């Protein structure tokens, strides 16, 4: 882990306090072993980070160190290794709290993913607090993970699901959203950044409006926490969820931030070990949050890996990462607009480094397959956002999603690959 901090630091050592002009992608890339490999004898140009990002050596080292030198189950052992593992695991709560500017580590619940975090809120808070006729507001650009749990709840409880419109250019319209809020609105659950359009939702304003209507607010930060600094206290939301693997950490570890008040009021949603104070056949007393929501042996090695990932991005600085990616996004949009027959999907003014597009006359899958042969990894399809595809009148897009290690040369390779696909498939 010390090594990891050093590699990250090596990438930023020339940076002044704010570092915006000296961000060095070449130094950053050296921290990610997989980026030096080739595919089909071509350099790997990895632009599928929105699906899952690659891991720096420091994260791999932290996982290896955990299994090799500090491994034992957490929270229960009366021995050295269990203590060490518990300390490392609980220490990650502090790192997450610092990343999100959460007031205290106890507001950080570990889950396996954003999907699980949202289902936790649906099965615990919403199950206990919502009844027939209560309204939940989402948007047209939600990932299925922020749609289906509410539909399941609708089927169980008879709640009403209302959907805020997205404009043709992918913009989120705050006024239209506000029109959906009523005295029955109990929950507003919105994405921070659209995984297809890249649109950055003004979540602080959304929260302010939702709170004024008396609603609870959940932010799906799967793409949000990756591209910019996040301050849950400034946003004012009740819940904020993100996942480790998109933030350069391992798979199988996610986070649900919840305000202390909300978490304290919520019943458990899964029962088992670790989430209890005392158990008898007559009565079980549940643990305080966050452990109340972490039944069973938690994915603590993955959490430790996430801790290393957080160390890594914080050493680079979320501001600096955001600025670098913003420049890449600008370059990508310019490059795409120059190619005849290419139509970007999602051109909101406030946009994170996620670029979707369609190519006239070509199926996204064909474009993706030909890009793949050029060594350019993108995602194609509906991106788990079929209602958004329907809203935009398309079936699928090609999506290039950028990360802190991508370069303008890779964007140029993407553009050249698209032109090649057009030629090949003409």
């Amino acid at each position: 882990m010390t090594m990891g901090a050093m590699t990250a630091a090596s990438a930023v050592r020339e940076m002044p306090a704010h570092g915006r002009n000296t961000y060095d992608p070449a130094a950053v890339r050296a921290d990610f072993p997989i980026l030096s490999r080739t595919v089909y004898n071509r350099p790997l140009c990895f632009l599928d980070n929105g699906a899952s990002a690659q891991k720096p050596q420091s994260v791999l080292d932290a996982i290896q160190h955990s299994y090799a030198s500090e491994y034992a189950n957490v929270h229960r052992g009366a021995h050295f290794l269990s203590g060490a593992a518990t300390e490392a695991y609980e220490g990650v709560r502090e790192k997450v709290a610092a990343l999100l500017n959460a007031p205290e580590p106890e507001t950080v619940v570990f889950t396996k993913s954003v999907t699980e975090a949202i289902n936790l809120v649906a099965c615990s808070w919403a199950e206990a607090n919502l009844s027939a006729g209560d309204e939940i507001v989402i948007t047209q650009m939600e990932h299925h993970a922020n749609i289906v749990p509410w539909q399941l709840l609708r089927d169980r409880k008879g709640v009403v699901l209302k959907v805020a419109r997205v404009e043709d250019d992918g913009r989120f319209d705050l006024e239209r959203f506000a029109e959906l809020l009523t005295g029955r609105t109990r929950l507003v659950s919105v994405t921070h950044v659209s995984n297809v359009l890249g649109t950055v939702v003004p979540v602080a304003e959304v929260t302010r409006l939702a709170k004024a209507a008396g609603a609870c607010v959940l932010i799906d930060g799967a793409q949000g926490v990756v591209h910019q600094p996040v301050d849950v206290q400034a946003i004012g939301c009740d819940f904020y969820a993100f996942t480790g693997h998109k933030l350069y950490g391992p798979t199988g570890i996610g986070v649900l931030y919840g305000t202390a008040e909300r978490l304290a009021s919520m019943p458990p949603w899964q029962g088992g070990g670790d989430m209890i104070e005392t158990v008898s056949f007559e009565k079980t007393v549940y643990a305080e949050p966050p452990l109340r929501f972490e039944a069973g042996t938690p994915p603590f090695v993955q959490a430790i890996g996430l801790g290393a990932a957080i160390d890594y991005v914080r050493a680079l600085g979320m501001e600096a990462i955001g600025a670098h990616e913003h420049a890449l996004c600008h370059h990508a949009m310019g490059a795409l607009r120059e190619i005849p027959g290419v139509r970007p999907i999602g051109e909101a003014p406030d946009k994170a480094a996620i670029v979707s597009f369609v190519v006239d006359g070509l199926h996204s899958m064909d474009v993706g397959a030909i890009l793949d042969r050029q060594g350019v990894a993108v995602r194609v399809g509906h991106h788990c956002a079929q209602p958004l595809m329907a809203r935009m009148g398309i079936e699928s897009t090609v999506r290039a999603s950028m990360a802190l290690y991508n370069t303008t040369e890779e964007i140029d390779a993407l553009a050249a690959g698209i032109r090649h696909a057009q030629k090949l498939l003409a």
Partner: protein
Amino acid sequence: MDLSAYEDYAETLEALDDEMRFEYLLDIAKKKRREPFPEEAMDEAHLMHGCMSRVWILHDIDEDRHYFRGHSDAAIVKGLVTMMTDSFSGLTTAELAQITLDHVRRLNLGALTTQRQVGMMAMLKHLQKLAGARPGFPSGPGAA
């Protein structure tokens, strides 16, 4: 059993390098585009589910032999579907049941992209289901 169409494809693919295999696949798709697929068969009943692109398969039986035609809205998949339907048309139910995933592996399209090979394997199972050559699975259009 007559697998001459399959053998032709397999031998051609074996002789090509990866890059040329890819172009060969596109050529098959482009040629096939000139043979229209019935518009009315591009419906839910003929759709093969679980693909990233849409794939429709038409199944006919003539004197106990199964004949397939396929279509996709993606060119590369169209090439793959064509290869599969050409290869395994004209077989009896018992013959179709003998076609295994090794036949698909021999085409070595996994070297192009592993996702394509997985798709091809799903396609084989789909053809077998349509023909009732996959015991334990319901047959007929839309049963996949």
